[in-house]
């Protein structure tokens, strides 16, 4: 198989040795099975034509099944576009950057279903910030885990550990949300956030770096510390996308030919130098691809985020403040949408999410694809 696929969340591991490589054994073959021409024997047998009618019908039905996938994407796109038309006509592109000003408090007003104000900026902001926080936490850990699993781990520990991380991917999103509400949020509120608050409100830092607006009472860790909010949502997202990034990173790293490692070691490199020069350098494009794939998952993750982000359509710099993400606003308000315009605006948010995740996923796919196809790498 030349193209990688996302290891399925629940992909446990049958034999124990290579859990995500259920069907990727062919990296050592120069030509993957999908590209091999049909053999002459088979072509001859097929062309005898004793059952050509039923064969053609069968092939046609199978083709239809395959075309369903195209049809689905087209159908989803057209439905989203037609259903979001009212909001598109009312707000146009300003839907994503404009806002009204509240006449009483003089604060920006983005989203007020009762008065028919629908601007999606806070949701875009919330989605971006939570995904960014998640990536910042998850990427170093995932790469560390992948390095440990491919290069350092003793053999007996390897398969239980990777099975364990894959279990992490099998847990439903709503269970993560439940755990986040009752364990992660109190933990953040009582133990972790106070540390950050203290650091970010140090008078020295405020004086030196005040121009960045990231420090002090109105900075990155200002405001009320509730535990819920952008940081909590980012943290739970990080735990959720970790297994995806780690599994794919592991896969591209173990696709690096052993000869590269041996060459580096033979030249006298230490293990870390070998990893840095031979493994990470060869796998870097694939690692970027897997990070983008993790980003795609983070952007669209709904339930866990909806349960901890706090659900208020506002924009604050502080990571401790409540927010809303594109997916969570749909989950929260869609079934209770009061007006057609409200529903249409929510669908437009969904359309934006659809387009963004398609683009992000396509990029990641192409990157990972390019890596695993380009190098005739040998599997460990």
């Amino acid at each position, binding site marked *: *198989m030349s*193209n990688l*696929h996302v290891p*399925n*969340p629940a992909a*446990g591991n*049958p034999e124990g040795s290579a859990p995500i490589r*259920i*069907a990727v054994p062919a990296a050592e073959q120069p030509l993957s*099975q999908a*590209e091999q021409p049909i053999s002459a*024997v*088979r072509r001859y047998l097929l062309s005898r034509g004793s059952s050509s009618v*039923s064969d053609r*019908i*069968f*092939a046609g*039905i*199978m*083709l*239809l*099944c395959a075309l*369903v*996938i*195209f049809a*689905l*994407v087209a*159908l*989803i796109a057209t*439905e*989203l576009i037609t*259903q979001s038309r009212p909001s598109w006509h009312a707000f146009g592109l300003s839907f994503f950057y404009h806002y009204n000003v509240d006449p009483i408090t003089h604060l920006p007003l983005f989203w007020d279903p009762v008065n028919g104000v629908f601007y999606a900026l806070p949701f875009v902001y919330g989605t971006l910030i939570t995904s960014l926080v998640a990536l910042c936490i998850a990427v170093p*850990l995932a790469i*560390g*885990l992948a390095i*440990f699993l491919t290069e350092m781990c003793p053999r007996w520990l390897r398969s239980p*550990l990777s099975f364990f*991380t894959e*279990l992490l991917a*099998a*847990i439903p999103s*709503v*269970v993560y*949300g*439940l755990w986040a509400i009752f*364990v992660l949020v109190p933990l953040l509120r009582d133990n972790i956030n106070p540390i950050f608050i203290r650091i970010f409100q140090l008078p020295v830092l405020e004086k030196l770096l005040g121009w960045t607006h990231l420090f002090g009472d109105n900075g990155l860790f200002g405001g009320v510390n509730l535990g819920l909010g952008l940081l909590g949502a980012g943290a739970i997202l990080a735990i959720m996308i970790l297994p995806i990034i780690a599994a794919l990173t592991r896969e591209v790293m173990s696709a690096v030919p052993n000869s590269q490692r041996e060459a580096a070691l033979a030249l006298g490199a*230490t*293990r*870390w*130098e070998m990893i840095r020069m031979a493994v990470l350098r060869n796998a870097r494009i694939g690692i970027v691809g897997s990070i983008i*794939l993790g980003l795609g998952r983070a952007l*669209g*993750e*709904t*339930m866990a985020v909806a*349960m901890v982000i706090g659900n208020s359509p506002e924009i604050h710099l502080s990571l401790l403040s409540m927010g809303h993400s594109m997916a969570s606003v749909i*989950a929260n308000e869609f*079934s209770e949408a009061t007006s057609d315009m409200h529903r249409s605006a929510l669908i437009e948010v969904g359309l934006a999410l659809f387009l963004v*995740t398609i683009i992000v996923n396509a990029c990641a*796919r192409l990157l990972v694809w390019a890596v695993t196809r380009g190098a005739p790498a040998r599997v460990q």
Partner: protein
Amino acid sequence: MAARPRQNLYSAWRTVKDHLATSLAILATLLVVAPLVAIFVYLIYKGASSLNLAFFTQIPKPEGEVGGGMANAIVGSAVVLGVASFFGIPIGIGGGIYLAEFGRGTKLANAIRFTADVLNGVPSIVMGIAAFSLIVVPMHHFSAFAGGVALGIMMIPTVTRTTEEMLLMVPHSVREAALGLGVPNWRSVLSITLKTASPGVITGCMLAFARVAGETAPLLFTALGNQFWSVTLNHEISALPLQIYNYAISPYDDQHRQAWAGSLVLIALIVIAVSLVRFFTSRGTLKGAS
């Protein structure tokens, strides 16, 4: 051998860096494993202490009252997942057969494969909106059927890709032998190739099943949820993930307790389903297939 001191210093520095990197990698691994262990331990502890017989036999009590169970949600999940499998699995397997047997190497097959991978990454909530506007809007009410279709759509790309990969592992000689005996091609694909690959294909279907079994977002505005018994496709229906969500954000302690119990049951069902299939199909794995 007495090396020069500068070289010694440099190689000591390199050793330090090596050890540093090793310990950082181990630290990262521990940091990943820690929340995992925490989640599992907490889930098992909270869930097991909240489980009782009533959970499996009773329907939810009105808000604020203690007791009741999620029997209707368990049955509802089964109904919705049944509908999803009815749509998702045959179409997915058909698509996989096309990719592996008929479309090998063609541009169309590559495009379909790519689209399937991309569709796999589309957020589940978007699938929910699509099912809402395709089925709920024309029918004018929420229904179990709509929920099943939303989940079925999500199963198709996963099943297609795993089926294709499993079929590609079947050796050419098997197909040629079947055709050489005069079996028509469609028959050879269905009863020889697909059958040879069936352990892998079934595993793929189960993985897709397990993935959608925990999905909440597409059901929020298709199946909607229900506090009462319902098994008809035409009405709102409850499902385990939906019920967990509703109870998790409710203010009552007893409902939190039930949410934990529900999570444990949901994960146990997923793990049991997957490992059962693994167990029964592991004997016939394709060994030595090209």
